[in-house]
């Protein structure tokens, strides 16, 4: 049982509820072993206009799950006559994750906005448990964030506070987790829709023992 602690899902993802919506965030590194196959990947996938998915674990598994859920939600929206709720999207993701648990390696976070529950975040970890939470993290980088989040997270943040919080968290994880890196992508979803944002690697906050780019001191 011990070997199945946070492992495998090589990435950092998170989603946070704020006053009026949600912020999803992720790093952009995809590795095959020790090689960085893609340094600018996009791990935040759209399911509907108002619901997005953070993906960690096997890229293939999460792509297949998100494709199916996007297809089902598309049909559901047409039949229902109004936009799907975040809870419905999360339940569909959970259903796939749970029923196929023996051969999927996918840790996912579903987040979005609907008029019934406002901003909601749902975690779907390995095994297919479904948990609605005020914020959720996933991926190998999330191990490095538990202490920081225990101390720094507060409920009812504003949109800007929440976004800065997400960027700082992912940046901290990138600083220590070899499997996470690159840029921080965020998606903000609220009643007005969804907005993508991009925080370049060299624009992220610097931490202990990290230095900004500078000139070679020998060429003074």
């Amino acid at each position, binding site marked *: *049982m*011990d*070997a*199945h*602690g*946070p492992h495998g899902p090589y990435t950092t993802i998170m989603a946070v509820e704020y006053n009026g919506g949600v912020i999803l965030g992720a790093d952009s590194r995809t590795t095959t072993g020790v090689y960085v196959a893609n340094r600018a990947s996009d791990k935040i996938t759209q399911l509907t206009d108002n619901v997005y998915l953070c993906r960690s674990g*096997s890229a293939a598994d999460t792509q*297949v799950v998100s494709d*199916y859920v996007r297809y089902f939600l598309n049909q559901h929206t047409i039949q229902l006559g109004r936009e799907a709720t975040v809870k419905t999207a999360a339940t569909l993701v*959970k*259903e*796939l994750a*749970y*029923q*196929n*648990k*023996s*051969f999927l*390696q996918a840790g996912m976070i579903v987040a979005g906005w609907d008029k019934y529950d406002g901003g909601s975040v749902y*975690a779907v*970890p*390995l*095994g*297919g*448990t*479904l*948990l609605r*939470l005020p914020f959720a993290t996933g991926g190998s980088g999330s*191990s490095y964030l*538990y202490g920081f989040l225990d101390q720094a997270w507060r409920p009812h943040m504003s949109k800007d506070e929440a976004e800065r919080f997400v960027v700082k968290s992912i940046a901290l994880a990138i600083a220590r987790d070899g499997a996470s890196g690159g840029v921080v992508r965020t998606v903000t979803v609220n009643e007005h829709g969804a907005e993508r944002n991009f925080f370049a690697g060299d624009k992220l906050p610097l931490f202990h023992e990290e230095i900004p780019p500078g000139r070679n001191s020998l060429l003074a």
Partner: protein
Amino acid sequence: MRWEEEGMKQNAFIMGNKLMGSSPHVFSLIMPSIPITHTQTPYVTGTSVLGIKYKDGVLIAADTAGSYGSTTRYKSVERLRPIGQNTLVGATGEMSDFQTILQILDRLIITNAMFDDDNTLGPPDIHSYLNRVMYNQRNKLDPFWNTLVLGGVKNGVKYLGNVTMLGLHYVDDHVATGFGIHLAQPIFRNEWNEDMTLEQGTKLLEKCMLVLFYRDRSAINKMQIANITEDGVKISEPYALQTKWDYEAFSNPTVGNEGSW
């Protein structure tokens, strides 16, 4: 991945299942048809659940931790749930399987209510049904990775029982799962008696939960107690126990024998 290790391949990608009541949507992939075996590993797990009968009913306690291997990943997981009017179920083990079991029990209660004949399902009925569910899954080599504690009061009869993931089931005056079997049951055997008041029963459970917090690495100091009486099920808000660390012997245990612990 699991299926690679076993050399087994699933021949369909499953969405929905028969337990949900509607026909499953199965998408066939082109793969060889080899018998499907599951027998999973648990991922998000809950630790011990304790239960005792007392004068007016049944008390069941559990903490609110969802562990992920050795990490305490989720700290507010409700592992005690009411079923119908008279029963409470508490779960140890894989939380996703517990969530599925709750859906199955929900369907059972609703289907029974639809007969509209004033018959309600009591604790022995739910216990029996759960046992069948767990045993049948086990026979498919695809168990619900849980141990369940089942308690309630109906028509003046107090009921408390256990069902394991193998389909083993029994009733008793006091039950425990997980670490609780080793640490709490002995205390129950020594200190439980039939006429305990609510206060005495709560104190006994809290004493055991404290021991579990000290000695079970997966336990956290945030618990709920449920009280089931003839009047129904009441689950407390999560609360924490007072711990004691100020023993003399704790402050400098290695003085005189450096290197020991």
